[in-house]
């Protein structure tokens, strides 16, 4: 619901404020890129490291935010409270945590991070925003969910899983341009990766079980040995 409410409000605002819309070439469905009047995100030294790309300093900021979030969730009191409410809200309430405040807080943080992602993407200076969002939502919001799930809800893992998924996604678009494959192969691969990533718990459990039985066997073998060694002695 809020998806479409936000989408309609964005379209409404842009339809009233027409000066943001790029009407060059008669297309009028995109806003001006931020590079048009030179307010794009600074590139620092990164454009010299990777010449010919659209890179800017937001990738550094994103990594910093991810590390900061890891610290926040795992090392601070509020982060612990958030996790506790997620695992068992009744127990958290019982332990004196304000459950409702924590839920609201987690949504606020999540909203802030999502907005930061949008800023990093659209303020880059080369990306056009299709302002008619009321008819079709940008897909990137939904694409965030698989990234988080693939990372196992670990902020550090998100750095690598987002790199992997974006790499596959972008290579798919280029695949269509240079080879005979069509661009949906990469989407197919991403979907299958996600589907099998769901089985990780099963494999984890199987491994744990095997380890357990192995340890038990070893322990029993050890017991036998000690018994065998101590056969002659009186204990």
């Amino acid at each position, binding site marked *: *619901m809020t998806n479409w409410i936000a989408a309609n409000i964005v379209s409404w605002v842009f339809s009233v404020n027409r000066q943001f819309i790029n009407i060059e070439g008669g297309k009028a469905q995109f806003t001006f890129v931020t590079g048009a009047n030179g307010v794009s995100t600074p590139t620092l030294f990164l454009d010299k490291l990777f010449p010919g790309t659209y890179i800017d300093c937001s990738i550094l900021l994103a990594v910093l935010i991810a590390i900061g979030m890891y610290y926040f969730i795992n090392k601070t009191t509020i982060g612990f409270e958030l996790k506790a409410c997620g695992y068992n809200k009744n127990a958290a309430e019982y332990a004196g945590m304000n459950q409702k405040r924590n839920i609201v807080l987690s949504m606020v943080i999540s909203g802030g991070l999502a907005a930061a992602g949008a800023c990093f993407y659209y303020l880059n200076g080369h990306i056009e925003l299709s302002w008619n969002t009321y008819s079709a939502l940008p897909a990137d919001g939904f694409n965030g969910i698989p990234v988080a799930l693939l990372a196992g809800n670990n902020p550090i893992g998100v750095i690598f899983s987002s790199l992997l998924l974006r790499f596959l996604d972008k290579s798919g678009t280029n695949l269509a341009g240079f080879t005979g494959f069509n661009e949906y192969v990469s989407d197919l691969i991403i979907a299958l990766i996600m589907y099998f990533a769901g089985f990780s718990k099963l494999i984890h459990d199987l491994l744990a079980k095997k380890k357990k039985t192995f340890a038990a066997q070893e322990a029993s073998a050890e017991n036998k040995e000690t018994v065998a060694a101590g056969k002659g002695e009186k204990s």
Partner: protein
Amino acid sequence: MTFLIQTTLIYTIPLMIVALAGIFAERSGIINIALDGIMIFGSFCGAMLVHLFQTNNLLAGHSQLLYLLALLAAGVGGALFSLLLSFSAINLRADQTIGGTALNLLAPALTLFIIKIFFFQDKLVMSKSLGFIVLNDDLPPLLKPFFDKMYLSTYLMIALYIVLSIFLYKTKYGLRLRACGEHPQAADSVGINVGRYRYLGTTISGFLGGLGGYIFIATTAAGTAEGTVAGMGFLALAIMIFGNWKPVGVALGSLMFGLLKCIGASYSTLDINGDGVCALANLGMPLYFYNLIPYVAVLVVLAFTAGKSRAPKAEGIPYDKGLR
């Protein structure tokens, strides 16, 4: 007025049937977040069947029969696709949200992949001259909104909705299915095969989801299968929560949403009392305002009723015999 009732019914039917699909899955204890993907895959199967029949010139004069066959194909396609979810959720005890999200990604990728291979384009358009609409010109004005220019699927889906609601609440199988969603251990202790009932719930859900997807593309999206159903599946999930996981609530919710949505879509030409004055268009509000209304209305109603809503207790938790 006639136009408004008809468009409302057309928009409401897929929403209602997909929300009912959500009920069947969640009442049996499986979170079916993959409804969007199931809709996409079902719509693709239906469109593919229609395309095959058209190119081979089969059933050329019997468009209603073709429509029925396409609905069946869509339902079976959706049911098969949902087996992927039930297999990972029931047999492998994977996280149901991850499985559902994966299927949501898989469905558009798979359909677009196949469409691109066979048709060298990004969408599969069914021929416009299908004639799925049932025409009854000579009717009294009171019956006209409900029986003239309607799709066969509208009546079928209403019948299916009633049958399945009775199945869920008045038969022993429905009771067992609901028990598996509330307390599977207790259900198992009296000899109910939890896995089998969860499979049943998810498969019915997949069948209905596929039907809903095909009805959506055949009636609302101009017969185009292009790997998207415009977020209908997620909307239906929201309507399901809005309806408190109950069929009656879902019907009311989707009817309200459909009505507001259709007012939003046709406000500029809407003439409710037939005096030639378009009252809403004269208000001077932009299109986006009317588009906002249905979502805001659902959100407001949810805010007032959410305290009473109750999800099935065991949904989303893989069944573990060892737990109490």
